[in-house]
C-alpha cells in the first residue's frame, strides 16, 4: 500500500496541513457518533497522533480524511464498548447512572459517511453556542472547525497557549455539562443560533483586520480563517441570506488590506487608498456573494453593510462613489439595526451626497443625545464638516477635543495633521 511519501524533512507540517483540511469533517462525524464534542475531539486528536507516527513511514494515504475517520471510529467503538460494560457492571451493583443517553442508544452503525454537511454544521453550531463566551467560541471554533493548533490560536489572539488551552477545555466541559445536543437548530431556534455563529466568524475576522502591519503574520491570517469558515458555511446553508451577506462583507473588506497601510505603517483612510491595490479577485467574490444575498430577499444588517462596502468597491476612483446609494443603504441599516455609530456613518455619507450643512444637523443631534459619549470619531467628523463650512476655529477646537479622546498614536498623528492643514 504505497502512500504519498511526504517529500520534505518536516513530515509533521505536511500532516498538520492535512489536519487543517480534514478536521471539521472528522470531528463533526465523530461528534455525531459519541454525542460529545470534547470526546470527539480527543478521538480525532488520537487519530492525528497515530497519523504522525505512521505516515512518515507508510506515506500519506490516498484518502487521508477517510483514514483519520476510520482510525478514530475504531477507537470510539472500543471506548463505547468499554463504557457499556462499565455501565452494565454498575447496573448489576444496583447503581443507576443518570445518563440522558446511554451508550447503548448510540447508533454505532450510523457511522455512515453521508450527511457530512450536517455533521459539520452541527459541530459549528456547537462550537459557536451562545452559552459560551465570545472568546471561548472563537478558540473552540478555530480549533475544532478550523483545524488550527493551540499555539497558532494563541499567536493570533496575543494570549498565552495556556490561556487558549484553558478556554478550549472549559468550553468543552460547559457544553458537555449542559448536554448540548449536536444537531442543526430548526424553526425559531435557527435565527438566534445562526446569529451567534455569524458573530463568532466576524469577531475572528475583525481580530485579524485590526492587526497592524509588522505584527505576527498569524494575526492578519485570521481574516483568511474567518473567510474560509464563512465560505464553508455559505455552502452548507445556501438559503440563508445573512451568511452570504457576511461573506460578502468580509471578502470586500479583505480586498482592501493591501491598501490600508502606508509605506511608514500609518493607516490610510478608505477614500485616500490607492485603489489599484484593491484585490479584484476578492471584490468579485464579494459582489457575487452579495448578489446571492440579494436574490434571497430582504437585506439584513450584514448584507447591508456589504452593500455599502460594494458601493466603494465599484467606484474606480473616490469621486465616482455613489454616495446617494450609500445614504439609502444607511437609512435601511438605521431602520433594522439602529445605533449611534450607524447614525454617525450615515451623517458622513449625507455630507458627501448632500453637503456638510445637512450632515452637521445630524451630527449635532448626536452630540445633544450624548449617545456617543467619548467616542473620538464624533468630534473628528464634526471637525471635518465645520472645516468644509469654513468654520475653521470651531473645527480646530473639535480636532483638539478628538485628540484627547484617543490613545491611539497614529490616530493622534492624523488628527494633528488635519489641524495643521486647516491653516
Amino acid at each position, binding site marked *: 500500500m504505497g502512500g504519498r511519501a511526504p517529500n520534505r524533512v518536516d513530515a509533521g507540517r505536511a500532516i*498538520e496541513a*492535512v489536519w487543517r483540511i480534514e478536521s471539521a469533517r472528522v470531528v463533526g462525524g465523530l461528534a455525531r457518533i459519541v454525542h460529545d464534542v470534547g470526546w470527539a475531539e480527543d478521538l480525532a486528536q488520537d487519530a492525528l497522533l497515530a497519523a504522525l507516527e505512521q505516515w512518515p513511514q507508510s506515506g500519506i494515504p490516498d484518502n487521508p480524511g477517510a483514514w483519520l475517520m476510520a482510525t478514530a471510529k475504531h477507537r470510539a467503538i472500543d471506548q463505547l464498548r468499554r463504557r457499556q460494560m462499565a455501565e452494565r457492571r454498575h447496573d448489576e451493583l444496583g447503581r443507576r447512572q443518570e445518563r440522558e443517553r446511554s451508550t447503548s442508544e448510540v447508533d454505532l452503525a450510523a457511522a455512515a459517511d453521508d450527511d457530512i454537511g450536517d455533521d459539520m454544521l452541527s459541530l459549528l453550531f456547537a462550537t459557536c453556542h451562545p452559552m459560551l463566551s465570545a472568546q471561548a467560541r472563537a478558540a473552540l471554533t478555530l480549533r475544532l472547525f478550523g483545524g488550527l493548533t493551540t499555539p497558532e490560536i494563541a499567536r493570533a489572539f496575543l494570549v498565552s497557549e495556556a490561556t487558549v488551552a484553558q478556554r478550549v477545555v472549559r468550553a468543552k466541559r460547559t457544553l458537555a455539562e449542559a448536554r448540548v445536543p449536536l444537531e442543526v437548530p430548526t424553526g425559531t431556534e435557527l435565527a438566534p443560533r445562526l446569529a451567534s455563529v455569524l458573530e463568532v466568524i466576524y469577531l475572528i475576522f475583525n481580530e485579524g483586520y485590526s492587526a497592524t502591519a509588522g505584527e505576527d503574520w498569524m494575526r492578519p491570517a485570521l481574516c483568511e480563517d474567518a473567510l474560509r469558515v464563512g465560505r464553508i458555511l455559505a455552502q452548507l446553508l445556501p438559503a440563508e441570506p445573512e451568511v452570504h451577506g457576511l461573506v460578502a462583507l468580509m471578502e470586500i473588506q479583505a480586498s482592501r488590506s493591501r491598501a490600508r497601510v502606508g509605506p511608514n505603517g500609518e493607516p490610510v483612510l478608505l477614500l485616500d487608498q490607492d485603489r489599484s491595490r484593491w484585490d479584484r479577485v476578492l471584490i468579485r467574490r464579494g459582489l457575487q456573494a452579495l448578489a446571492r444575498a440579494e436574490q434571497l430577499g430582504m437585506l439584513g444588517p450584514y448584507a447591508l453593510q456589504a452593500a455599502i462596502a460594494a458601493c466603494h468597491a465599484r467606484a474606480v476612483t473616490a469621486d465616482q462613489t455613489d454616495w446617494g446609494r450609500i445614504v439609502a443603504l444607511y437609512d435601511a441599516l438605521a431602520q433594522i439595526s439602529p445605533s449611534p455609530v450607524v447614525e454617525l456613518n450615515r451623517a458622513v455619507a449625507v455630507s458627501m451626497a448632500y453637503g456638510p450643512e445637512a450632515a452637521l444637523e445630524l451630527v449635532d443631534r448626536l452630540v445633544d443625545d450624548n449617545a456617543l459619549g467619548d467616542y473620538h470619531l464624533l468630534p473628528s467628523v464634526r471637525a471635518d464638516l465645520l472645516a468644509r463650512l469654513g468654520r475653521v476655529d470651531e473645527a480646530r477646537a473639535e480636532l483638539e477635543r478628538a485628540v484627547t479622546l484617543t490613545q491611539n498614536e497614529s490616530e493622534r498623528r492624523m488628527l494633528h495633521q488635519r489641524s495643521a492643514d486647516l491653516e
Partner: protein
Amino acid sequence: MRFMMIMIPAVSEEDWPSDPAEMAELPEFTAMGKYNDELNKAGVLLALDGLQPSSKGARVAFAGGKPSVTDGPFTEAKEVIGGYWLIQARSKEEAVEWASRCPANDGDVIEVRQVFEMSDFDGAA
C-alpha cells in the same frame, strides 16, 4: 497566503479537444469538476480558469530589445500550461496537499507557487 497551482498537462496538442462541448464529455472533466467543487466547499478556492489550446494562442518573444510573435501551436515547447487555480492556504504544505488531491492524469504536473503579497514589496520602501 495565496498560491497558484499551475496545471502543466501531459496531453499533446493533437489530443486536446478544442471544443468545450467535446471537453465536457471527457471523464476527466467530471472528476475535475468534482475536485473544483471540493476546493470551493473547503472555502479555499479563490479563482480558477482553463486556458484555450495553445494552437489558438501566440507567443511574444523578446530579443535585441524587440518583441517577435509566433502563433501556436508551439511544437518546440516542452511544457504548455493548461490552466490554473488560485487558492488560499496557511502554508505551502497545505497548498501542496491540495494539489496532490487533483485527479490529474499520468504525466500531468501541477506547479505550486506562492503569490507575492503587495506588502512583500513595501518592505523595500
